């Protein structure tokens, strides 16, 4: 598995999802960039044989931080960048796999897979929420500093 191949593929996939989600044309390149960065972080975690769920968490945190940076720079809602960015990480494949086993009566294989899908989506959500919390507290600190300077 080549890293370069994965970077290119995840870039194209994220940008195409940007088109599917009707993201503004000027943001498509950045969507692809954010998505492929997140996927590379995840892939590196998997290749180093570290926990996939931790990898997903770190990747989604980085995606959301960069998304918030872009959002402030281009005055666009964060969701435009974060949605396209997290698409490669999202456990769509796992959810599909679990569902396929369920409907084929393989409940014992299906249950752990669905538990994993749930954990992965939880990790993505925690990454997103954590970056939001950090962003908000930075904003509050800045405001407090400004008001201190004024008085």
């Amino acid at each position, binding site marked *: 598995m080549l890293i370069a191949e994965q970077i290119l593929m995840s870039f194209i996939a994220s940008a*195409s999802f940007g088109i*599917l*989600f009707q*993201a503004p044309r000027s943001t498509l390149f950045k969507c692809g960039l954010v998505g492929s960065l997140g996927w590379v972080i995840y892939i590196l975690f998997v290749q180093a044989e570290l926990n996939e769920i931790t990898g997903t968490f770190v990747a989604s945190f980085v995606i959301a931080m960069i998304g918030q940076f872009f959002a402030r720079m281009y005055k666009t809602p964060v*969701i*435009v960048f974060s949605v396209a960015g997290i698409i490669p990480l*999202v456990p769509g494949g796992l959810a599909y796999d679990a569902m396929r086993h369920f409907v084929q009566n393989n409940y014992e294989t299906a249950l752990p897979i669905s538990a994993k899908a749930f954990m992965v989506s939880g990790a993505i959500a925690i990454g997103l929420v954590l970056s939001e919390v950090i962003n908000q507290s930075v904003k509050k600190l800045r405001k407090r500093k400004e008001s201190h300077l004024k008085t």
Partner: protein
Amino acid sequence: MGSLFYFSIADTRSNRLHFNNEKSERGRTNVKAFEAGTTEVIELCLLIGRVMLQNGAETYRVEDTMTRIAASFGSGEAQSFVTPTGIVFSLGQSEPSKLVRVSDRTTNLHKVAKANNISRSITSGSLSIREAHRELTDLDKAGTYYTIPAQIASASLASGCFAIMFQGSWFDFGPACVAGGFGFIALLAFHRFFEIKFFAEFLASLIIGVLAFSFLLMGIGNEADKIIIGSVMPLVPGLLITNAVRDLMAGHLVSGLSKGAEAFLTAFAIGGGVAIAFSIF
């Protein structure tokens, strides 16, 4: 004309209110003047909320935008309650609340970004309430930002890429592109015929499964699993699952649970469609 004049008064009053809360008692007459236009403020808030929600904005952002706009017109106590299927909004505790029903939701980030810009100009005061209302109505009526062929092409390309990303071989790239493209066409076409979205998803994934197995029978492609996972990615509710968990964490329990239910039903429809293809071959 009359209400426009009232609004200019209300605006200056709200600005003053921002810095000095105690003076609000003196502004009684202006409060009366302000009330003449409350229906317009409510209408505007509900319109922007509906446009944002229908196009995939986050629940908390919709609530935040609505209360922020209301605050910019001087109603600092506005309340909004947003769920994926409807919005309840009230300008204050003594005011009657209004309801808007949202029946269909898509993801159109272009419209979300536009609505965000409009709300920014409303709160900064550079857009009047009438202009904002007109711009939002135009935005609401506007069609999709990208043409349908462009969407189909990108769905098919994304399918191929996902097959590679899930460690498929390059032999699976072509079949995944074709199956994913046809699956997406089927989704769009069936969604137009049937009101029930889950049924369209079920049929689309059935077509994807049948196509993937027929490709293998013809000797094209390597692994059915990789082709199918790649091609169902444009249909899979991955984003809904993540948003559901995120809403739950943020305390939006109702929207979190309902988004989770929607995601589960979609995943069930897709799994069911593929399973039928499995049982045929």
